């Protein structure tokens, strides 16, 4: 049974959507803290570029492509939900999850190789940031995929379709973080 408070909308924005935006505000500063620390350090340590050269740029680029494409299916899911087609929305969300899974698979492959080559999280300043920042992001990809599965399970039955948009907003944020991480960790020399 919903409380009256939940059904009100004095600002004209749906309650769930408003909450997602505030979640993003707090997330932006979390990633902001990591990224600004990394950038400041990187500027002070030009020699980290040598370490960064050991990352697999093309795998990273492939992952960027996968993650950005998965956002497309998230948008299409939202469109389907707007039209009231819950089944289609759910299927598109599953497709998005597949993107997330691919992303995490490629990432584990990269990390396994790097660890084998001796570039562990203890191997120096660059690797500390590399694993922490990308790991924090991967954790968000994973959590987002779980939430998407949960949203899809109710969207399939045409219930709570407004959640499709909310999880989509979150998914775009996860994308945007990666758009910052990819060049900073892989490309910057």
């Amino acid at each position, binding site marked *: *049974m919903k*409380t*009256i*408070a*939940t*059904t*009100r*909308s*004095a*600002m004209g*924005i749906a*309650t769930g959507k*408003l*909450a997602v935006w*505030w*979640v993003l*505000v*707090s*997330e*932006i*500063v*979390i*990633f*902001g*803290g*990591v990224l*600004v*620390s990394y950038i*400041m*350090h990187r500027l*002070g*340590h030009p020699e980290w570029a040598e370490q960064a050269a050991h990352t697999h740029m093309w795998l990273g680029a492939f992952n960027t492509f996968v993650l950005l494409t998965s956002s497309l299916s998230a948008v299409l899911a939202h469109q389907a939900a707007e039209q009231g087609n819950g089944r289609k929305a759910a299927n598109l969300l599953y497709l998005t999850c597949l993107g997330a899974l691919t992303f995490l698979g490629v990432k584990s492959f990269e990390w396994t190789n790097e660890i084998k080559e001796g570039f562990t*999280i*203890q191997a*120096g*300043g660059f690797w*500390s*940031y590399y*694993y*922490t920042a990308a790991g*924090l992001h991967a954790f968000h990809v994973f959590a987002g995929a779980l939430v998407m599965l949960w949203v899809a399970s109710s969207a399939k039955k045409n219930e709570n379709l407004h959640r499709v948009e909310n999880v989509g907003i979150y998914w775009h944020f996860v994308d945007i973080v990666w758009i910052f991480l990819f060049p900073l960790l892989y490309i910057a020399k």
Partner: protein
Amino acid sequence: MAEHTHERAHVAGTANDAHHDHHEVGWFKKYFWSTDHKVIAFQYMFTGMFLALIGAFMAYVFRMQLAFPGQPVPGFGVVSPGQYNMLITNHGSIMIFWVAMPVLLAGFGNYLIPLMVGADDMVFPRLNRLSYQIFFLSAIVLLTSLFVQNGGFGGAWTAYPPLSANKLYNLTPYGASMWLIAVALEFVAFLLGGINFIVTSMNSRAPGMKAFDVPIVVWTIVIASILFMASVGPLIAGAIMLLFDQTLGTSFFNPNRGGDPVLWQHLFWFFGHPEVYVVLLPAMGIVAEVMTVFARKKLFAYKTVIYTIIATGVLSFFVWAHHQFVAGIDPRMANVFTVTTVLISIPIAEMCFVYIATLYGGSIRFSVPMLWALAFMAEFLIGGVTGIYLGASGLDIYFHDTYFVVAHFHYTFFPIAVIGVMAGVTFWFPKMFGRYMNEFWGKVHFWGTVIPFNGIFIPLFILGAAGEHRRIFDYKNFPQFNHPWQNDLRIFATVSLLVMLLFQIPFLVNFVWSMFRGPKAPKNPWKSNTLEWTADSPPPHGNWAEMPECHRGPYEYSVPGREQDFWPQNEKA
């Protein structure tokens, strides 16, 4: 109109359900697993009060050690240097993260926001319950950390690396990590709570309540939540990094391997300074509510107060490096941060002037809540003014890490976390429990707290100005700090603390006794305007049988031409 009927239908459902629940739901579900914002508020408040007792006990132990070094402390025994560090560290952490935050922000926020904006609950009641549960877990982790091998963390509540990052330095292999985990969990709890506060007051206001009809205390709690949300991120990131430094061997803060210990100070204080305003603003809001009611006067310049709250919030993001004037930051930065730090006193001073202008010409009643509110103004002023000394980088180099700093921030935090909270507790007690507190014992508690408080910290100002460094376990080892007059001041401060702690007993007795035996209070005992006073005392689950509407601002007191000197927000014109 259609929406209205819809709402009424909901209301009827809620009221029936509440009635229904009352018989079926057991104690556990009602008081431990509840989604009711009022129960969650009490959970936060009582947990906070319990931890306040623990924090106060810690203060008692280390103050005894400082006044009578080496002698066994009654109830604790002889204090070792490691224990001393653990006690001061956890005293600070508990009082800020597990007392001031849960009581002021989560306790009052949960209790007041739905009632003051005229909603039946928070927008996400289950998220709200989860928030408290995570908070409870964080408190358990912290308290457990005090009893693990080698004891709790002793690297001060600011946890500067390298001391905090390496167990070879801090000697607390488990305590340090558990402290970090507890703090991180606590942040998660408050992020969940904060989202609830912000969205509820943005979206769930009663029909007719515009943004500028919202009481000041709701504004302050919401802006404080936004400040928290926007500032805590870097510290969450920093906590992860520090935890990795401790456990995985990363090198974020390790200067031997290319890391930078000062980075932690930036991440910590980027949060740490807005945090001061996160707890200050709710206390300011409580004081505003109490003052208007007991001066029977409209709040002077309502909108100005809101703009100053916002200005304080924005400026608070640009002052953090004043904690690092001696940490080796660029002197040009020190100039900038001196200016921003001194600037932030302008909106705060403006708020104080507005409150004084509210009192001017009012018919003031010196009830217990009003006494606390007035004391807040007087004591916080001392904290604020001494802050200007410390904000000036030139003076700070001398004062840094002396007892002057300790006295300064206790003159801000004590008015916030004790005096402001007491103003709120005594003011809303009749609403919370449907009964009055005893006025006489309330006044005894008031004077017995405020006078010894000054007795504790004025000596510390003097000692600090004479150069006494903080974080010293036994001053007998430092001849320059071991003169008789210095020892006398230390003993005076400790005795004042003992007196203050003794005077908390009448409060606790009065509080518990009044909860069950106090004279019954009506709906609106203080003749206030805001919506919470139109609900029953105490309000049932769902708050109102019929949801209120809002017709005017919250501070229409002594309006000319009206018979009554107050004009409730829900009364039709």
